[in-house]
């Protein structure tokens, strides 16, 4: 029994945190709104470090690691509000192709995705669009009969505008066929959905960490009535409650990643618990953050909105809290 990240996992997360603090600061996230929804050069850095291929086998240029090794890094992505599709690529596409694609192409795709030379789009059921579909060479797309691996040249894209201007989303249309369908397509789809839920939950925790930290910094500086507004109890208690909710969501998220790594039979239920708790916590934190900022928080000049809008999108993505609670309910109460 030891429910804490290993020194290696923490060292990886710290390394990514440093990279993102340096290369993906708020100004660059903001710039991604006007640009192509990516931070220039960042993808290559993440590939070089091995982050994209962390879960790919070593033979395909990966690090051969497990979901639980990656989850703290995904939270770092959230902390930085990274606009690039880190979670969908590293935490969903790579292990799905690794476990479920059996064609000779699979190894090549893993190698190229890990190296950052090929990009992958992930379209799971329930989500409105695919992130960064325009520059994807290959897609994992879910149909009624499970998950398909689909070449870019047979899909049609319809760009969608998200409230989060850094999110480049497209609706993807295509025709499922036996040729595109993965061998165990249904299992692949359900595992991919679980992985996506956990990855997004981890990102939400990171987003919420930053929103809370921004707010603590702001209310410690901003003065009204001659004192910092952070000395008012109404402000303190909102932020304390937000922290409680967030800190008790995190262990559910870490556990869900562990359960996936160890093949725990309850892994799917754990994923739902993680996503429900993280979505709710990000909601609570986001509301408190906005309220405690006052009108400055209600502007596009203030960086808060970059994180807030991402959190709105991610709360709904991969199943919202209500949907996941219903899944837990079905497992628990039958």
């Amino acid at each position, binding site marked *: *029994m*030891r*429910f*804490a*990240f*290993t*020194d*290696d*996992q923490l*060292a*990886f997360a*710290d*390394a990514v945190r440093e990279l993102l603090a340096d290369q993906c600061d708020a100004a660059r996230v903001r710039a991604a709104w006007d640009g192509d929804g990516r931070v220039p050069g960042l993808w290559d*850095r993440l590939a*070089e*470090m*091995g*982050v994209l291929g*962390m879960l790919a086998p070593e033979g395909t240029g990966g*690090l051969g690691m497990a979901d*639980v090794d990656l989850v703290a890094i995904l939270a770092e992505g959230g902390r930085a509000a990274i606009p690039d599709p880190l979670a969908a690529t590293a935490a969903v596409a790579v292990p799905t192709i690794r476990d479920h694609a059996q064609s000779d192409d699979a190894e090549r795709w893993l190698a190229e995705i890990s190296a950052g030379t090929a990009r992958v789009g992930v379209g799971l059921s329930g989500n409105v669009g695919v992130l960064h579909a325009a520059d994807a060479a290959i897609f994992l797309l879910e149909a009624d009969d499970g998950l398909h691996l689909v070449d870019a040249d047979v899909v049609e894209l319809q760009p969608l505008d998200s409230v989060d201007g850094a999110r480049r989303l497209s609706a993807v249309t295509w025709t499922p066929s036996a040729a595109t369908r993965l061998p165990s397509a249904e299992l692949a789809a359900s595992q991919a959905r679980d992985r996506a839920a956990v990855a997004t939950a981890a990102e939400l925790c990171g987003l919420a960490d930053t929103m*809370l930290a921004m707010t*603590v910094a702001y*209310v*410690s500086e901003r003065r009204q009535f001659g*004192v*910092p507004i*952070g*000395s008012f*109890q109404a*402000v*303190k*208690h909102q*932020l*304390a*409650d937000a*922290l*409680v909710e967030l*800190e*008790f*969501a995190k*262990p*559910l998220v*870490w*556990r869900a990643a*562990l359960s996936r790594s160890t093949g725990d039979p309850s892994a799917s239920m754990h994923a739902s*618990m993680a996503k*429900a*708790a993280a979505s709710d916590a990000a909601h609570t934190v986001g509301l408190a953050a906005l309220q405690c900022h006052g009108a400055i928080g209600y502007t596009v000049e203030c960086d808060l909105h970059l994180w807030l809008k991402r959190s709105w999108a991610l709360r709904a993505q991969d199943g919202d809290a209500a949907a996941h*609670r219903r899944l*837990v*309910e079905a497992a*628990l*109460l*039958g």
Partner: protein
Amino acid sequence: MRRLHAYLTGRQNLRVDLTWTPEQDAFRDECRTWLQRNVPSEPLPSGDTREGFARHLDWERQLFADRWAVVSWPEAYGGRDASLWEWLIFEEEYYRAGAPQRVTQNGIFLLAPTIFEFGTRTQQDYYLPRMAAAEDLWCQGWSEPNAGSDLASLTSKAVRDEAAGGWRLSGQKTWTTRGAFCTHLFGLFRTDPDSVRHHGLTYFMVPLETEGVTVRGFGRLDGDEGFAEVFFDEAFVSDDLILGAVGSGWSVAMATTSSERGLTLRSPGRFQATAARLVRLVRDRGLDTADPSTREAIVRAWMAAEAYSLYTLADVSGMVEGRSPGFRSSLNKIFWSELDVDLHTAALAVLGGEGELETIGGTENPWLKGYQFSLSGPIYAGTNEIQRNIIAERVLGLPRK
């Protein structure tokens, strides 16, 4: 750009691991077997009534006789030298088995850690075994009529009696849990008349039979005589009844209160057992009898019990490796107390109109009592508003008033 591999620390012995070792599983089996054989088949009457308290003492002595009263203590004091992990396992099994409430908890879980930390060897050797054996029964005397959340404003005093080699206590404590049934009280008294706030306080351990001490029990919300007020009228206590140094009572007391907020008083097994009973309750009564919003409330509360358990495992992992939760124990206090209210609120919703009944189908309705008790969680052990102040100032670092 360095590959992540370059960051490997070489410390590979540590893993994230939510499984127990074979030794820990064996310990669990031992707990479970003993509890199965010994837990009374009929629930005991409430330990917050005079009759129920006596019945609970029999149980406590049975626990002690088989060395289950204080598993984490050294064997010399009646324990098993159990690790923090084993203690968690014991607690899980204890609550899963539906074993009786621990009427000795204020001694064993709150005073004892403080005696281990601050007591002299003589005090440890004398008090700890008697506490474990439920010979001395301890209540805590912090609150006073005019000093609740603002404990540092307390006015009960201790006046030096040099000739007699001790102190004379005067004043009043109140809300003292099970004070009318206990034999001893620990609490703070002002030894320096010129001091203010948390200076000049001293931590005393007082036999309630001392001349000049009067105890009056009174009813709590649930009607049980679980509260008492304790009056001190120049009651004499000798120097050896002081825990820690004269004048340092505040910091000694803070050790006790942090035990109360955090792990030792409220282990996750307690809430997981309640959550499991809640799920059984709704299943037994038929899912279709529960409104969708009630079912959602059940799922939320059950998930919160899971979250509390996992959070605790993370906390204990840190403690085992020397990382103390410090002020973060205030997060636990808020979470477990609200969780307990939510669990019981959901159960009463399942019971619907029957929820108000003291007995259902001839047996006691445990949820009604549990609900009433859960409502005190956000008040005792430092109100949740006080915990929010602590979190805001000490964990988040917001400016103090």
